[in-house]
């Protein structure tokens, strides 16, 4: 399973890519592969605010519907509207196709997330 470098990861298989005070958030390759063919992505609205661990999106596949959780506190600054018409983008490349962009409220929360190497180890051991 592909684990992209230089990203932060959560136990729930989201990734986060820091971009100044902002960050892109998406699903890991493992998450998209486990879900199977994704058929629908529900997106939040720009300016919505979420706490860490809140569900900000729901992803529906032929097998299951699954919430996507915030890795850190933050406010939505952008959503990837391409996913509404083409949810399969998440299956094609889940690192290239982010779901939301946020303004990070508290950068110290990044310390609680896994590095790419740690996530790789987590996948080997836990899953």
């Amino acid at each position, binding site marked *: 399973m592909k684990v992209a470098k230089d990203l932060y990861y959560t136990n729930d298989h989201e990734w986060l890519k820091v971009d100044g005070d902002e960050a892109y958030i998406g699903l890991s390759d493992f998450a998209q592969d486990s879900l199977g*063919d994704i058929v*629908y992505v529900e997106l939040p609205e720009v300016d919505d605010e979420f706490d860490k661990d809140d569900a900000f999106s729901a992803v529906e596949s*032929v*097998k*299951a*519907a699954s919430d996507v959780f915030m890795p850190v506190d933050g406010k939505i600054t952008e959503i990837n509207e391409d996913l509404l018409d083409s949810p*399969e983008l998440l299956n094609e490349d889940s690192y290239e196709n982010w779901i939301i962009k946020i303004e990070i409220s508290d950068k110290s929360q990044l310390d609680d997330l896994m590095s790419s190497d740690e996530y790789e180890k987590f996948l080997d051991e836990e899953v």
Partner: protein
Amino acid sequence: MREYNKLIFELSRPGRRAYSLPENDVQEVRIEELIPAEYLNDDELNLPEVSEVDIVRHYTNLANKNFGVDTGFYPLGSCTMKYNPKVNEDMANLDGFKNIHPRQPEETVQGALKLMYELDEALCEISGMDKVTLQPAAGAHGELTGLTLIRAYHEDRGDTKRTKIIVPDSAHGTNPASAMMAGFDVIEIKSTEEGLVDLESLKAALSDEVAGLMLTNPNTLGLFEKEIKEIADLVHEAGGLLYYDGANANAILGQVRPGDMGFDVMHFNLHKTFSTPHGGGGPGSGPVAVKKILIDFLPTPVIGKDGQRYYLNYDIPKTVGRMKDFYGHFGIMVRAYAYILSMGSDGLNKVSEMAVLNANYLAHRLKDHYSLPDDAIYKHEFVMAGLKSELSEITTLDVAKRLLDYGYHPPTVYFPLIVHEAMMTEPTESESKETLDEFADVLIEIAQEAKEKPENLKEAPHDTPVRRLDETLAARKPVLKYEG
């Protein structure tokens, strides 16, 4: 005729009729005089024009493509596809039940009201609860009703900050959905390795904001929550109520009662446990049974009895109001009542014993060929995690599709979500050892085929009116209406 695949519209020919109406003996009124012109549709009505024999053949051919419990083995986990005895249909077809109107005066439908009253009593006896509403249309509607009662209970006590419902991650998808519908937020708690409620997670989730816990027991893995008394005590101590999802009640009939386990409110699925037909539109029926503390909030009317007279009781001052037009799905109640009386208490005991025995027998026969995450004693159903060989490219979906070639309805697949490649099998008590053996033999043969001719499985089904459908395309680009 297995390949028959026409639409009734394709049979249509202008002017063809299957009936002739008698001469009109009432005065004709122009529709424009009754309904304002702007509301009238001036498109031509696109109705099929077909002769009687063509209609009969059309629907008979379509019906022959159906698969049901009367056609073959249907081990669809969590759905309790047991046989529906035909005597239930005979009872529901009695003139006095079939041809009554919900607005008839009470004194002319005493028999129907008596049946509803006695069904209420029987369900109370079976569940260890105190009173029942027969209104809910099916299971999820029962959940919505039960949760509405829980909310009314807390609000009546002025305890308005209880806005959360706890649901385990193994729960039926309807549980969190119903909680949201009833206006609650959902807290999902993780299961233990064995798939049971994790007491530590439960304790961590409990607070004075929790309105209640929804639980299925046995749970969706077919495992009995042995610590149910402790679970109930914890929830009650925190001020919450316990909701019992009755979907798996077939496992416990006559053995243990939700009321005795500490549950405050529950629904039954009459269409599962009490053997009324379901699938293909039902209708179902999901009566909700409550303990005394919730009786004051029940939807009106409930069925009352005054001496020898039965009546519709609307006098419940704190009622949450109606949950359904009229009194629920009466025809289904008749079938369930007939089932309960014809089985008797000994018979219902035997139901759960045989359902559990059948599930465990099947699990035992399959466990060398399919992965069984818990080598436990199951209740009425068990969940396998795909083929034994982890290296196999063959998925649970391939196995399910191949079963169609052998004339079986596949088990529930990819649920519960906490089991990888889940295949949830519930044989029910209806099936003979021979049927179970034939089914196990076929599944074992498929496991063998997965090693020797995997492509045969990847391409399955081979012997059905349509081959494997593209589920992804159907979900992403659904075609929702007929376009001729």
